[in-house]
């Protein structure tokens, strides 16, 4: 049962910052994590609303990836709660959160290099399409897996590269594959950890176009350094500095916030 993510009803424009009636898809409540003496996540409270693209920005070392790791379940927070679609998932393992619709892409490409691009995505489709404790039928022959997989690949522009071993893809193509895998999971929330990391100008623009098309279909948390992409796509932005949220609001609000400009944006914007 999804909460307020009937994507036909909600589009990006309909989300306003004042007063929201639908329940948040993701709510982080005072999340905290320390490594030794270093507070990497400091009482982070954040909400992701249905259908919105919520960007998380901040300088290197601010703890953005650590935050994503806690949300997806790779890292256990020291304190605080993570509520996903109304359910407290703080103590659930990674695969259980993924099953509930929490998909993520990785900052450092994490795909299955020995599998073809198609097989990578088909695996993700497989996770939602019945049991995988099937031992005798050949999986690569299953149209029920291949068709949605091809569709996802087409969405990110990799339709022609479906049968190429994923390890042989170009860097930008691998980033797109990461996205395709996440899409194939029919996510209720998509966590994108620097999808444009290391991509050139053209590929970056292509990814922005893909993300723009996907906007509104499901909520996304986008961690990015590429400010152009962030301000073009985000409905709301949260600024993470030294592990804590300095500001959170619409792009205009954040751009105008003096503290944010001083701490981070000053160097990024002209």
């Amino acid at each position: 049962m999804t909460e307020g993510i009937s994507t036909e009803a909600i589009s990006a424009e309909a989300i306003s910052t004042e007063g929201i009636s639908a329940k948040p898809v993701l709510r982080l409540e005072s999340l905290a994590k320390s490594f030794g003496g270093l507070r990497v996540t400091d009482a982070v409270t954040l909400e992701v609303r249905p259908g919105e693209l919520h960007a998380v920005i901040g300088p290197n070392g601010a703890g953005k990836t650590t935050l994503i790791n806690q949300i997806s379940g790779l890292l256990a927070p020291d304190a605080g709660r993570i509520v996903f679609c109304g359910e407290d998932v703080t103590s659930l393992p990674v695969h259980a959160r993924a099953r509930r619709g929490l998909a993520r892409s990785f900052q450092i490409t994490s795909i299955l290099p020995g599998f073809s691009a198609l097989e990578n995505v088909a695996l993700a489709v497989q996770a939602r399409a019945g049991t995988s404790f099937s031992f005798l039928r050949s999986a690569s022959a299953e149209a029920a897996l291949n068709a949605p997989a091809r569709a996802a690949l087409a969405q990110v522009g990799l339709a022609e590269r479906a049968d190429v071993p994923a390890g042989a893809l170009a860097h930008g193509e691998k980033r797109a594959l990461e996205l395709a895998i996440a899409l194939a999971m029919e996510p209720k929330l998509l966590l994108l950890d620097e999808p444009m990391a290391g991509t050139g100008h053209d590929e970056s623009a292509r990814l922005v176009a893909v993300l723009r098309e996907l906007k509104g279909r499901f909520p996304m948390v986008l961690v990015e350094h590429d400010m152009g992409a962030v301000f073009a796509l985000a409905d709301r932005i949260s600024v993470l500095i030294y592990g804590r949220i300095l500001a959170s609001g619409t792009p205009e609000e954040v751009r105008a916030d003096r503290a944010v400009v001083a701490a981070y944006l000053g160097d990024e914007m002209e």
Partner: protein
Amino acid sequence: MVQAALTAPPAARRSPLRGNALPLAIFLILALTPLFAVFGAQAYVLSLVTRVMIFAIAALALDLLVGYGALVSFGHAAFVGLGAYAIGILSSHGITEILVALPVALIVAVLFAYLTGIVCLRTRGVHFIMITLAFSQMIYFTASSLAPYGGDDGLTIQTRATLLGLNILGNDRALYYISFACLAGAYLLCRALVASRFGRVYRGARENPLRVATIGFPVYRYQLVAYLIAGALGSLSGFLLGNATDFVSPAYMSWQRSGELLIMVILGGLGTLDGAIIGAAAFILSEEWLSGLTEHWKVIFGPLLVLVAIFARGGLLGLVARLRGAPHD
């Protein structure tokens, strides 16, 4: 870690010959051997090749773990031993019925695989290697201390397993073809497994367990099931071995035996299934030939292993692929 040696996609890694030509050739040769053996010392050839096929079953199971799952088990011989002791112990009590003894052998193996697997699979890398070794050592010492069943000296199996009273394994030829059938069955099962949905998750977990988990699969559960299957196949191999040699001893599950099984799989070519059969044949036949040449054959075999380890990446199948200039390697 095994990832590094297995970067080629499964299809490319499989065989230097097109598609199924290699396994068909292998099984054809195995099927026809008894006919050709008439020209030589028949009983000797039959028993030798039977042994090859029996160990090939265990090697297939180990390839499933090591080659496709990167789970380097140094305790695989324990399952072989369990299967052999199952028929050994039951036979000594007069129970030779296959329909009883074989299920017992399989169930004991699966139970052992489960109890040890839940501990082993919590570890990674060398710890996994060591803990599988530890568990097989435990079984080894248990068998050594079973005085009523021969202890260290082992147990002679007076009567082989029978099916509904029929002494079907008594004849060397019959035993040969039954082993052949079991090998064929095991091979087909493994091929299907690897290509199935289960196999895809399992193989994915070898490439990138984190990724597979974040897609929504509890990797541990899949690895455990694979471990159970491998244990059962190993036990089948042991069951046949006990019948073939009319003997079982703790040596069947020594760590040296586990090492030899690993050598067989690597020699043939990890992660190819065909390689497991070829490796078992290569190992056992070389051992047989060399020990016929000299009593000190290990002085030759040892360095040979070293050379294989250093130079023959991908085992014999990898070597053949490279010699033919195959593009995938």
